[in-house]
Each structure stands twice: as structure tokens, then as C-alpha cells.
């Protein structure tokens, strides 16, 4: 028996309680139904014992003494009394002290109505204060960042926000200043709390000291309605509640899901809700005529599209996008395009991801497995910029549990400090480096880092306990090199698992549903055939279609007649915007289906308004293959419709019947045609114990339905006080009870070498050159994409991007002081501010994707070899 399995017994208020070594008394008592009041204690933070609210009587050698329950761990035979006169008097006294300086401005405080200080004062506190002196005063409130306001008078110094910033986010940008009565939270002068995770501090603040700018004075908690949902701003799939007032979303709060986000959200996810009510929403269908926008009705718009489809050959119809949609929408569109029209040229990725075969055909890991792996290999760029909550999970696993990380990247990332070994490679040489990891000779001019140590690290662990996180780090290079490197890693480390680093909303679900060329729903290959599909679909594409880059390239040759752009802002988001611009002008019928106007909608012949997040039901799939539900809280905006409905309607105008009328129908059909989803019924997905989602295939998820932490009103104030349409406030879900039993899935993966599925990389490669820099282009969290720019408060956080260059390169360009540089390549020229980055190899320049508002993507010339740019001082 290991330590963690050992059980011990203690007595709380005369009741025997079972617990495990290391557990804190406050948690053990809570499990036994005894709620000890608390402020500083938070189940996801290290105990600190500063607020003293949880004083209880614990029996020791000198009899019962008062001790903080959040700061002592349980021991066998411990005797605890939480409701004695002495304990109550102590709690009374602590509350009186906490309130001594608290302004009691509850009527104008956003926290009023969901405030742990209010609630616990009512339950445990004295009704009167003996304190008559003047309370302390501070200027209130002060903005500690563009998203968070701090009211120091309300603060009770519980240390939650500062512990979160230092321990969880790893950015101690706020701290206590002063001592005793003068103690208050502060940022350093001119260094605001600019963290990607700042909103979490407001979420866990037990008083109204920290409030978020978008929510300030927006609503009163008792007027809010809420529904549980899954965040789709990236592909981690954080569990959250959507809270609304008068058909407008006012905030998101993170739910404590053990498997996924452990109660945290990133600021992009948390504050992205403002885009739902943005002025950029498209109200009704319209045609883009030479004379300008002409509003029209759904029937005229759909009729025009159906006519264009009738006269088009199947191969001349294509679809790009869809990664933001729900699984059901995706399936409907896949069925329409592949199963009715008969084209395979549909791609949910915008040439910024990986070959879908790697994602679909590898053994997949969960986040939990990744954090508990013996070795985690990162080949995914900077996770903090792309999948922020996955970054938090991996960071804390490395810090607290000693997770070993081998990082293979083009430059330093936020996780480089936690990595056991960091290897750098020259763009285009990932595959060589991975070969080198398994013993091949490497040419040192293309690499940096301790390869010997990396080899030793890899050979020291059981390959089956390795997890590889893979994504596309460099948009300016063909995806083939990283794909082959990832495939080589997974093939060589027999039994290792893959965690997808693809970041776009539901892109992993789109791959599972076959919204990529060559695949069909259920991670199956088109060429393998599928009997169930043949029964349900009218037709199947005759050959494997084109990916999004190939679609645009063939459009240049006039081979595309109808192109659907489903939530795809190609001009802003496609890695080669020049190609996108030219191609779109050469397609007779471009159908834009989107909820927000963007730079691409003006290129569309007809635009159809889609409903946005929280305006529709459905399900989504995250990087693990975890299917979880999307909640609907709002009435759809204006004439907008969910995308599945558009597909069904369009089919009807074409004289076809997709065969479903509701999301239930669609999910039913998904279960029939996709072995991957077999056994996962809608009822199972909606079960109380399955709220954090279920990983498909079912046979792969050993813990099929995990029991989510009970919603904790003191850990996350506001999450249960809003009970109108949410779960009951103390819905202690009993594992298994009420959950429909999941049937065993029949999904089995055809094992083959991944590397054999990929093309050979026979491009001519070149190493570092003196004046021809290899271009590395990576994504960042706050970019000029439509999602960020249409959310008012997020858009203010977008800063001009900078370029990075090695110290030697800096010297060679002749820069000193100012780094303003002109980059020239692929016939385009862009001016950027450069800074020195010693982690870059010589001859490399790294730029953020939307640098100079997307101009950077014009520098790409990806087809033949790594993009190169010349640089000169401005």
C-alpha cells in the first residue's frame, strides 16, 4: 500500500471521518459534510493559513486548542470540534477583525450577493462590531491592468490573488506591500498586472477587492442566469459557466474540472464573450454586389447558392474552415459536402496545423496522462501563447510533481525554464534533430542544446510512458518537417502517446468528424471505406481532396467554382494572405458563413449570418478527444442560424434531404456512422457526472465518467449563487448514480507507422546564410484576429508585435539602439522593430504572425523550402 492509498480515521464533531495522509483538515471535514468557514483557503492553491477564519478546536497533548483547519494536515485518531463555543467565539472574533477595516459598501459592490465575506458573516459572524475608529482609506478603485480593478479598502489580505499569480501563473506581478495595518496589494510602478491569467484573481477573490473591467456594474448576481458550457477560444476545452443578464452575456467563470482546467480560464477565453454582442455581428444574409451590400432573405440567398452548386462539378466545390463549430454542425457540413455533393476538398485547418492523419491515427493522450508521463516531449511552440491552460497544467506538473520535459523548439518558450533539456533547431531541420535523438549523426551548425543529455533522458524512460505534444511552431515553413519529426518520435517510442497541440476551437473535433481531406467521421480514412457511411450517405468522394492551401492554389487555376468559408477569415488568418486574396478573386461563388464581419467577408459573393457561442446547443471536442457540451443562454442574434441548420436548409434547396431535423438526430447519426463515438449517447453526455466531458473512443478513457469537484461557492464565488438555470447549489454528484451506462465502443485504430503515411521531405534545404535569414513565424495569444478585435477589452491588449533575432544577426544587420528593420522576401517588404533573443540560432529571425497587421504573412514562400528574408536597418 502506498502512502496515498493509506486511509486514516479522525473524529469531527463526534462523527468518524475517513481521510488520507497529507489531506488538510478543512478538506477532510468538508467531505464529511462539515463546512468550516474560510477565506484564504482555496482547494487549488497551497495552504497559507493567514485569514484565521478556519480556527477549530483540535485535541493535542494539552487538551483542545484552537488551530487553523486549512493549515494542519489530518492525522490518525485526530479529534476535532468545529462548533464549540470556543471555536465559534474565535471565528466571531476573526470576522470582527476582518470587518474592522472593510468598508461595507456592499450596495455598490459587484460582489454583493455572491460574496463569501457577506455570506460567512451572516452564517458565522457577530451581528455587531465594537469597532468605532476610522477605517483605513485608499484611493479606490485603481486599475492594476486593463482588465482588473483593485479596491484596497475591501481587501481582507487573504493572499489568494498573490498566490495564484506567483504559484499558478508564475508571474508575481502583484504582491503585498507594507506590513500590519498598512498591508495592501500592489503592482510595481509602471509594471501592470499584464498576465494572460489575470482574470482568475478576480474569480477567486473572496471579497469585492478585485473586479474585472468588463463586468463592473454590469449586473447583480441575483439577476443573472447561467448555463454550463465549454470554452472554444482555443482547443483545451475549459469548463465554464456562461452568465447572462437580459439576453446579454456578462461574464464567464471557470468551473473546477479536475481533468481539464482545474477552475482556471485564460483572459482570452474569459473576456472573449464581448465579441458575441459586438457591433460586427452580421444581422441578415446579404449579397456583395458590385454596387455594394444588398441585404436579402434566407430563401433567396440559399436558392442562389443551390443554383451555383447544381451547375458545379463535385471536384470544383470546396470548403475551408469550420473549426469553431460544434461537432453536430461539422457533421452536417461534412455530410453535405462529402456525402451529398461528393467533394473531399474540405479542410478545417487554415494551413497552420498538422497533417490530420497524425492526429487521427496516433494513440492519443489526455492532459492528465501528459502531466503524469515519465517524460513529456514538447514540439509545439509556445503553449502559453496557443493553449494557455495546457501551459498552466504542464507548468504546475513540472513545478510540483517534477514532470520531466524535453523541449524541442525553434526558440525559447515559456516552458523552457521547466524543461530538463531544451533543444533548438534551425528551421527545416526538426526531422534531422529527432533522428539525432535516436542516435544519428547531426551537423552541429543546425542545432543547439545538450543532445547527449536529451538522448540519455529519452533512453532512461520506458517509451510507453512518454507523451508527445505536437503542433506547428513555424507558419513560414512547410508543415512536413515538424510532421515527420513528430511521426518519427511517436513511431520510435513504441507505445508513446500523442497530445494534439492544434489550437483552433474545435479543430480536433473537425478532424474526428472528417472535416479534412482524406478522412471520414470517426478517424477513418476515406480509402478504407465505411459500410455504415454508405448506408447513411448518398455518395462518397471518389478520391482524396485538397487541403486548404491546395484549394486556394487550384482556385488560382480556375478549378474552384464554389467555395464555402465557414468561420474562416482567410485574409487575417491564412498563413499566406497574398495567396488567399488572389484566389478569392478567382472563384465565381464564395459563400461566407460567419457570425462576425471580418476582412474576408467583403470577398464573399454571399454572406450568411451564423449564431455565435452561447446562442446554440451542441458539443465540442478538445485536444484530448474529450467531447463536452456547449450551453445555450442567448436567443440567436437577429436572423442568424446555427450552421447545422444552414446545411440542412441548403440541402433542401438542392432537393436533397440530410435526414435530420434536430441536434439529437445528428448525434444519433454520428453514433451510427462513427465507431469513434459509438456508445456515447446524448444522455450520457448530459449526465451530471459527465459535465467535464467524455474522452472518445470510450475504450481509451479508462476513467469514463469522472466525478467533477462540487461547485464550491467560496472557491469560485458567483458560480452557485446564480442558480436560476444552473445546477443546484450543492449538487454533490455521486459517481455513477443517475449516469447512463456507457456501452463499450468498437473503435480500433489500425496500427501502422505514422511516418509511412507522410510524404518524403525531399525539399532542398539550406542552413544559415549571412544575409538571408530563415523566417520563423509563430502565433501569439492576443493577435489582430477578429475574435480578439471584436471583444472590446481584449482588443485594447493587442500590442504591435516585435521581431527577434540572434545577437550575431543583430550585429550583422548593423543595429544598435533602435531595432527598426525592413524585412524583404517573396516580393513583399515589411517594417518591424527587432529585439535581441539569445535563444535563437544565428541566421534566424522570429516574427509574430500578425506582425504589422498581417503584413508578415506576405513574406512567406513556403512551397519549396523554408522562407527566407533579407533584412536591413531602417
Amino acid at each position, binding site marked *: 500500500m502506498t502512502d496515498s492509498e493509506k486511509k486514516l480515521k479522525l473524529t469531527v464533531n463526534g462523527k468518524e471521518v475517513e481521510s488520507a495522509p497529507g489531506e488538510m483538515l478543512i478538506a477532510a471535514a468538508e467531505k464529511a459534510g462539515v463546512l468550516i468557514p474560510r477565506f484564504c483557503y482555496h482547494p487549488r492553491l497551497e495552504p497559507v493559513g493567514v485569514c484565521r477564519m478556519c480556527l477549530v478546536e483540535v485535541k493535542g497533548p494539552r487538551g483542545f486548542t484552537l488551530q487553523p483547519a486549512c493549515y494542519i494536515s489530518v492525522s490518525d485518531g485526530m479529534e476535532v470540534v468545529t462548533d464549540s463555543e470556543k471555536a465559534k467565539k474565535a471565528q466571531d472574533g476573526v470576522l470582527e477583525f476582518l470587518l474592522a477595516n472593510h468598508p461595507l459598501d456592499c450596495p455598490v459592490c459587484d460582489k454583493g450577493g455572491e460574496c463569501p465575506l457577506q455570506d460567512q458573516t451572516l452564517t458565522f459572524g457577530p451581528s455587531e462590531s465594537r469597532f468605532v475608529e476610522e477605517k483605513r482609506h485608499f484611493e479606490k478603485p485603481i486599475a492594476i491592468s486593463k482588465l482588473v480593478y483593485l479596491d484596497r479598502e475591501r481587501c481582507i489580505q487573504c493572499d489568494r490573488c498573490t498566490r495564484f499569480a506567483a504559484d499558478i501563473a508564475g508571474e508575481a506581478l502583484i504582491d*503585498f506591500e507594507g506590513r500590519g495595518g498598512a498591508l495592501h496589494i500592489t503592482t*510595481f510602478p509602471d509594471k501592470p498586472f499584464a498576465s494572460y491569467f489575470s482574470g482568475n484573481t478576480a474569480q477567486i477573490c473572496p471579497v469585492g477587492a478585485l473586479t474585472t473591467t468588463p463586468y463592473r456594474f454590469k449586473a447583480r448576481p441575483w439577476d443573472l442566469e447561467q448555463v454550463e458550457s465549454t470554452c472554444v477560444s482555443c482547443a483545451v476545452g475549459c469548463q465554464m459557466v456562461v452568465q447572462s443578464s437580459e439576453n446579454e452575456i456578462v461574464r464567464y467563470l471557470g468551473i473546477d474540472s479536475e481533468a481539464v482546467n482545474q477552475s482556471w480560464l485564460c483572459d482570452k477565453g474569459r473576456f472573449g464573450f464581448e465579441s458575441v454582442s459586438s457591433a460586427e455581428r452580421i444581422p441578415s444574409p446579404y449579397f456583395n454586389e458590385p454596387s455594394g451590400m444588398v441585404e436579402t432573405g434566407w430563401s433567396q440567398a440559399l436558392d442562389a447558392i443551390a443554383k451555383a452548386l447544381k451547375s458545379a462539378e463535385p471536384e470544383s466545390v470546396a470548403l475551408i474552415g469550420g473549426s469553431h463549430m460544434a461537432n453536430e454542425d461539422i457533421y452536417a457540413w461534412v455530410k453535405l459536402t462529402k456525402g451529398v455533393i461528393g467533394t473531399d476538398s474540405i479542410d478545417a485547418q487554415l494551413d497552420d496545423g498538422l497533417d490530420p492523419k497524425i492526429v487521427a491515427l496516433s494513440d492519443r493522450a489526455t492532459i492528465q496522462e501528459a502531466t503524469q508521463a515519465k517524460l513529456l516531449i514538447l514540439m509545439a511552440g509556445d503553449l502559453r501563447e496557443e493553449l494557455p491552460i495546457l501551459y498552466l497544467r504542464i507548468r504546475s506538473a513540472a513545478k510540483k510533481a517534477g514532470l520531466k520535459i524535453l523541449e524541442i523548439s525553434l526558440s525559447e518558450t515559456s516552458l523552457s525554464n521547466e524543461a530538463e533539456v531544451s533543444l533548438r533547431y534551425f528551421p527545416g531541420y526538426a526531422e534531422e534533430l529527432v533522428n539525432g535523438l535516436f542516435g544519428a549523426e547531426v551537423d552541429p551548425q543546425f542545432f543547439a542544446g545538450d543532445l547527449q543529455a536529451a538522448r540519455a533522458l529519452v533512453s532512461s524512460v520506458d517509451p510507453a510512458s512518454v507523451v508527445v505534444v505536437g503542433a506547428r511552431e513555424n507558419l513560414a515553413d512547410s508543415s512536413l518537417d515538424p510532421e515527420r519529426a513528430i511521426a518519427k518520435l511517436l513511431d520510435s517510442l513504441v507505445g508513446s502517446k500523442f497530445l494534439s497541440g492544434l489550437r483552433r476551437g474545435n479543430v480536433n473535433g473537425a478532424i474526428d468528424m472528417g472535416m479534412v481531406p482524406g478522412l471520414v467521421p470517426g478517424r477513418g480514412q476515406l480509402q478504407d471505406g465505411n459500410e455504415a457511411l454508405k448506408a447513411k450517405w448518398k455518395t462518397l468522394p471518389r478520391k482524396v481532396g485538397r487541403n486548404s492551401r491546395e484549394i486556394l492554389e487550384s482556385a488560382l487555376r480556375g478549378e474552384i467554382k464554389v467555395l464555402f468559408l465557414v468561420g474562416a477569415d482567410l485574409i487575417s488568418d491564412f498563413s499566406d494572405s497574398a495567396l488567399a486574396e488572389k484566389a478569392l478573386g478567382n472563384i465565381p461563388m464564395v459563400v461566407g458563413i460567419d457570425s462576425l464581419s471580418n476582412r474576408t467577408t467583403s470577398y464573399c459573393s454571399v454572406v450568411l449570418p451564423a449564431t455565435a457561442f452561447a446562442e446554440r446547443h451542441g458539443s465540442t471536442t478538445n485536444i484530448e478527444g474529450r467531447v463536452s457540451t456547449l450551453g445555450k443562454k442567448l436567443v440567436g442574434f437577429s436572423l442568424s442560424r446555427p450552421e447545422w441548420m444552414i446545411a440542412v436548409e441548403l440541402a433542401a434547396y438542392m432537393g436533397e434531404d440530410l435526414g435530420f431535423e434536430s441536434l439529437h438526430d445528428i448525434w444519433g447519426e454520428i453514433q451510427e456512422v462513427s465507431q469513434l463515438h459509438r456508445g456515447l449517447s446524448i444522455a450520457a453526455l448530459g449526465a451530471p457526472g459527465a459535465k467535464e466531458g467524455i474522452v472518445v473512443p470510450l475504450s481509451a478513457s479508462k476513467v469514463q465518467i469522472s466525478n467533477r469537484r462540487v461547485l464550491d461557492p467560496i472557491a469560485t464565488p458567483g458560480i452557485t449563487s446564480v442558480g436560476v438555470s444552473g445546477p443546484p447549489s450543492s449538487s454533490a454528484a455521486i459517481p455513477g448514480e443517475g449516469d447512463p451506462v456507457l456501452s463499450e465502443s468498437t473503435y480500433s485504430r489500425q496500427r501502422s507507422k505514422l511516418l509511412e503515411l507522410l510524404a518524403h521531405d525531399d525539399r532542398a534545404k539550406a542552413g544559415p546564410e549571412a544575409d538571408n535569414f530563415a523566417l520563423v513565424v509563430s502565433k501569439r495569444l492576443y493577435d489582430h484576429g477578429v475574435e480578439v478585435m471584436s471583444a472590446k477589452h481584449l482588443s485594447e491588449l493587442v500590442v504591435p508585435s516585435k521581431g527577434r533575432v540572434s545577437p550575431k544577426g543583430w550585429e550583422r544587420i548593423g543595429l544598435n539602439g533602435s531595432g527598426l528593420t525592413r524585412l524583404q522576401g517573396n516580393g513583399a517588404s515589411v517594417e518591424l522593430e527587432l529585439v535581441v533573443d539569445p535563444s535563437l540560432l544565428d541566421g534566424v529571425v522570429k516574427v509574430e504572425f500578425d506582425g504589422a497587421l498581417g503584413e508578415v504573412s506576405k513574406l512567406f514562400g513556403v512551397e519549396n523550402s523554408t522562407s527566407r528574408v533579407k533584412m536591413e536597418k531602417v
Partner: protein
Amino acid sequence: MSRFTKEMETRAFELLALYPEKRSATIPLCHLAQEQNGYLTEESMVQIADLVGTTPAEVLGAASFYDMLHTEPVGKYVVGVCTNIACLLQGGEELLGHAEEKLGIATGATTDDGMFTLEDMECIAHCDHAPALQVNYRFFGPLTNDGFDALVDDLSAGKLESEVPPHGTLSRVQRKHPIAVPLEEIVRHRRDSDAKEGERLAAKAATEAKEGSN
């Protein structure tokens, strides 16, 4: 000039080398910065954060806890008058009142010429010389009003330069000689004692397990 000078930087690295954890050098480095500038400037807190691998906010948080570290500019001489019980009984409050008058400033303020900052102090352990005060942590007392005036005049005239260095200078962080015990030895000793502790715990656990099985 508020970042470390070359010479001070050398001393900063010497201090950093003393600690297995760089963060442990935060307070000594704050003293060093204060010795150079008289108080902790924002730039020096940023530099210290860089040196010890933390954030400026954490350096400010740590520094602001301690009364001996000043995050606002102070005079060349920081005069702290004790108003704790022994001095209070001997006229400490009156002495502080007189000091305010003599210097022409309120408690907590600095004279316009940047020479004096006046503070009231809790017990400075100079009770046998009450009412006492300290100037840059050098003790004076017992002091009458006239004695205080004389002290201020002497300080202003520079007569006490050798006794009272400018604010911030602490002999304790000024290391004239190399570290007495080489760092390797400290590390080795640490390792040995850790190993011993490990053995002791293992032995204890073994005995307990044995007892448990009986």
C-alpha cells in the same frame, strides 16, 4: 545613477554567491542598493529582481515589509526618535516634538536640503540611555533638547562624518575578505547532513514498520 555601479555590481555578485537559492540574496541586495543611493530606487528594485530571478513587485513586497529599507527618497541622515515605553517615560515624545520644530518638518518628512529625515521609532534597545534616538542606526542618548540641537548642528557641519556614514551604509553587507568557508564546503556539508537526516528517517520508518507488523 540608480542601478548598481560597476563596483557595487561586483559586490552584488559576491552576495549572490553566498546563497544556494538566489532569492535569498534579496534583502542583502536591497541593503547594497540603499548603500549606493540612500534608498531603494525603482530602477534598483528592477535590477535586483533580475539578479535574483523574481519580479520587481516581489522585491518591493519584501522591501516594504522592513522599516530599515526605504522605497521613498530619504535624507542623508535618518533620525529615529524612540517613543517606546522607556523613552516615552523619559520624554521621548517631547524630544520628537522638539525635533520637528528644530528641523522644521513633520515626523516622516525630509528637510528641503535633503539632509534629515525624521522618524519615530519603536524600542531601539537603548533604554538605559533614554530618551534615545538613532541617526542612520547609530545610537545617541540620553538627549536633551539642547543636546539634540548640538547633534543636528554637528551632523550638518560634517563633524560626525567618521561616526555616522550617509544613510544606507551597513558594515554587515560590506565584505572586506573573501567568504571564510568556501561555498563548496557549505554545499558538501549540507549534502552530508541531508544524507544523515535521510538515513535517520529511513531507520525510524523501518523501526516503525517493524513495530507495526508486530
